[in-house]
């Protein structure tokens, strides 16, 4: 009886999910509830987790609970620590979740909510979660080796170095684009800037507390830090209303970008206890807390989706960013569906903390499903905005003309309406001077989040929720910028150490300053150019980041496929080859279009050509940037082609038995844990 009942139950879940997709796809013109989007997504996740991840765990990887994990064998009480499954799930989620899954869906909403939602759901169950799970499994069987190291060991040395260079380059673009999102969110916003600036003294106080006053008491310091942060948030309103103070905290884009550049350099050079680590804890609490609160609020409110399911901009004429729905919806969604960057965490701290091999299923596959759910929440937040408001906020001032009137006129031509005075009212409600052309995604997400949160928690009002959302995004983006600059510095020191030994010394101050300056100069250059770009910068940098991140995912899937083939599981290699083939198709199409397309809005080179006879004094600089972006995109693609070719050669050799299928797993040691623990 039980198998029949269970079969019926699962059929019901699947049917419910299908109904959700049906309602979304068939809605034409009428507003539907966010509930349908959630039903479609969550039912798909549940079915995929129950069946597909089980298939991966049992058949493809053969996870074995009798095999002791590196955490159990090495257990050094530092990085190798056997950790409870649910605790590690939280830890892993906090590490992989960032701004990507929040910003990507907001931008992709220009195509309507349907294309992005479909890719968030389909991409994660067949691609992103498979990638995270595969790399976690590979690293778990190799004592927690990094992705670069595994590429070197399993494929070959060239692929290893190619992967390391790719990781560093992707880091630079990632940090630039994330910093740009923060600059655009804080530009001319004294309230937001005051709150974020407040995190610096708060972090210094927490750092001193944890280092000297009460060593290692992170929870105490975090509680104090969060209380002070909320105080700074409330104080920001007063600052924004005071004419003198608001003047001090009203900064232009270029000034803010210099501020972030100096800050990023300081955070990389100063000891971690001072700035980096306290801000890391602060933002982890805020991130996990806010994601939970937002999830609950969406479930309670089930807001209507005002954005159409599909807009006319699928034809490539979109004003937020150029390019057709294929391939650019897939590039823009980025981390919520599949993210190469996760392969770095899945081959970093997490594999060293797994208590049991079977836990990798919940943490690798399940953790990524949760990240995709965060992406769905961002999509809901974007789609609850009136389409007119969405475009008024996300299209550059150059296109909209810079005034509310010209914006309303332009938006009307696209078939959406913006009421007279609507943007002014909205800006006043949110406590901002203007919300026109606030590109980058963060302000739209904050408006969407504020209306959802204020709809459920009646108390504090829209303006406070808006700035809470801005603080939440900016804080953890800046934490990624700090931590990323530091990691980039270590990578550069590691690579540079091969050329000249003293550079590789990670505690030598001249080397620290030199490599930090190089990394900061790298992302700082792209950030500054993005800030002064009349099209808003996001337009060119976000697709570049999306391409880079997904190409890194292609590298990870190449490594995963190689391992599967060497494990003599070639018959299951389609689980990684399928997403790999799709990623290659999408990223190569997007990359070639971004470089060579004839449309100057889309192609870097044609944009450079269109500026050749321009009288604009900035034309020469913009031409240089276009060429640089084109070169970078080509370099990313070249690196990935190298990795794919090296891997394909390895697959061929193993499959034709010209090479023995040897796996470099750590030897089997039986676990000391009792079964069922």
């Amino acid at each position: 009886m039980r198998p029949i009942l269970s079969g019926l139950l699962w059929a019901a879940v699947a049917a419910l999910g299908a109904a959700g997709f049906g309602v979304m796809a068939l809605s034409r013109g009428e507003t539907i509830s966010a509930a349908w989007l959630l039903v479609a997504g969550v039912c798909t996740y549940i079915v995929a987790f129950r069946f597909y991840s089980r298939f991966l765990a049992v058949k493809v990887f053969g996870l074995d609970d009798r095999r002791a994990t590196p955490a159990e064998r090495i257990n050094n009480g530092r990085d190798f620590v056997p950790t409870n499954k649910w605790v590690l799930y939280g830890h892993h989620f906090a590490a992989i979740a960032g701004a990507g899954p929040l910003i990507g869906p907001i931008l992709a909403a220009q195509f309507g909510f349907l294309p992005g939602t479909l890719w968030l759901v389909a991409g994660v169950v067949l691609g992103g979660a498979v990638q995270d799970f595969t790399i976690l499994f590979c690293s778990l069987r190799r004592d927690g080796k990094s992705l670069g190291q595994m590429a070197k060991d399993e494929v070959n040395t060239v692929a290893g170095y190619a992967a390391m260079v790719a990781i560093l380059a992707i880091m630079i673009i990632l940090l630039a684009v994330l910093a740009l999102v923060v600059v655009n969110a804080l530009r001319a916003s004294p309230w937001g800037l005051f709150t974020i600036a407040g995190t610096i003294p708060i972090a210094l106080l927490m750092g001193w507390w944890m280092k000297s006053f009460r060593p290692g008491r992170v929870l105490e310091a975090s509680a104090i830090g969060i209380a002070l942060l909320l105080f700074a948030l409330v104080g920001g309103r007063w600052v924004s209303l005071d004419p003198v103070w608001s003047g001090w905290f009203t900064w232009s884009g270029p000034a803010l970008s210099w501020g972030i550049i100096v800050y990023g350099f300081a955070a990389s050079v100063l000891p971690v206890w001072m700035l980096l680590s306290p801000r890391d804890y602060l933002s982890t609490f805020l991130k996990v807390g806010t994601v939970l609160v937002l999830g609950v609020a969406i479930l309670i409110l089930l807001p209507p989706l005002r954005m159409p399911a599909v807009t006319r901009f699928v034809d490539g004429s979109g004003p937020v960013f150029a390019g057709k729905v294929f391939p650019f919806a897939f590039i823009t969604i980025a981390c919520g569906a599949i993210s190469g960057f996760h392969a770095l965490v899945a081959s970093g701290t997490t594999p060293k903390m797994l208590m049991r091999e079977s836990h990798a299923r919940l943490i690798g596959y399940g953790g990524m499903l949760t990240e995709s759910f965060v992406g769905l929440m961002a999509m809901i937040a974007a789609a609850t905005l009136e389409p007119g408001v969405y475009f008024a906020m996300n299209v550059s001032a150059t296109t909209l003309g810079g005034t509310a009137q010209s914006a309303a006129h332009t938006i009307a031509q696209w078939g959406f309406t913006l009421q007279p005075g609507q943007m002014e009212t909205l800006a006043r409600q949110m406590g901002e001077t203007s919300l026109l052309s606030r590109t980058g995604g963060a302000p739209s997400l904050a408006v969407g989040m504020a209306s959802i949160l204020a709809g459920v928690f009646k108390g504090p009002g829209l303006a406070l929720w808006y700035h809470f959302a801005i603080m939440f995004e900016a804080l953890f983006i800046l934490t990624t910028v700090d931590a990323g600059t530091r990691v980039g510095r270590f990578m550069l020191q590691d690579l540079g150490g091969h050329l000249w030994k003293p550079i590789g010394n990670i505690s030598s101050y001249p080397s620290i300053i030199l490599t930090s300056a190089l990394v900061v100069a790298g992302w700082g250059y792209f950030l500054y150019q993005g800030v002064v770009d009349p099209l808003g910068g996001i337009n060119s940098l976000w697709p570049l980041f999306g391409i880079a991140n997904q190409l890194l995912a292609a590298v990870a899937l190449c490594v995963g496929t190689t391992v599967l083939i060497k494990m003599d599981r070639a018959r299951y290699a389609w689980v990684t080859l399928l997403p790999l083939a799709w990623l290659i198709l999408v990223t190569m199409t997007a990359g070639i279009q971004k470089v060579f397309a004839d449309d100057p809005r889309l192609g870097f080179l044609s944009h450079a050509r269109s500026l050749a006879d321009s009288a604009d004094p900035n034309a020469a600089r913009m031409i240089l940037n276009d060429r640089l972006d084109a070169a970078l995109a080509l370099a990313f693609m070249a690196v990935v082609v190298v990795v794919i070719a090296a891997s394909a050669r390895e697959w061929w050799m193993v499959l034709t038995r010209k090479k023995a299928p040897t796996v470099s797993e750590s030897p089997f040691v039986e676990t000391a844990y009792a079964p069922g623990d």
Partner: protein
Amino acid sequence: MIGRDAAVGGRRADAQWWAVGGFQRWTVSCLQSRVRLLLRTLRAVIGAPDYDRYLERHAQCHAGSSPLDRKAFYAAFLSWRYEAGPNRCC
């Protein structure tokens, strides 16, 4: 047997904070251990150092030598956490 003890030591930290001493017992000492375990869980999730856990572990494995003090442990913790590679994503 040594492995077994280590496993038990590893699992003690993972006991569920809401179920210490059974659900019915709400004595003061029971509450204290619940709070302790809740804080321990929180620390593990956010990746904060856990000195008590380090001491327990040290007593098990390196019983002869003296453990690091709080300050030195925190410094060592920071260096491996932030020099090991990316622990934050986009």
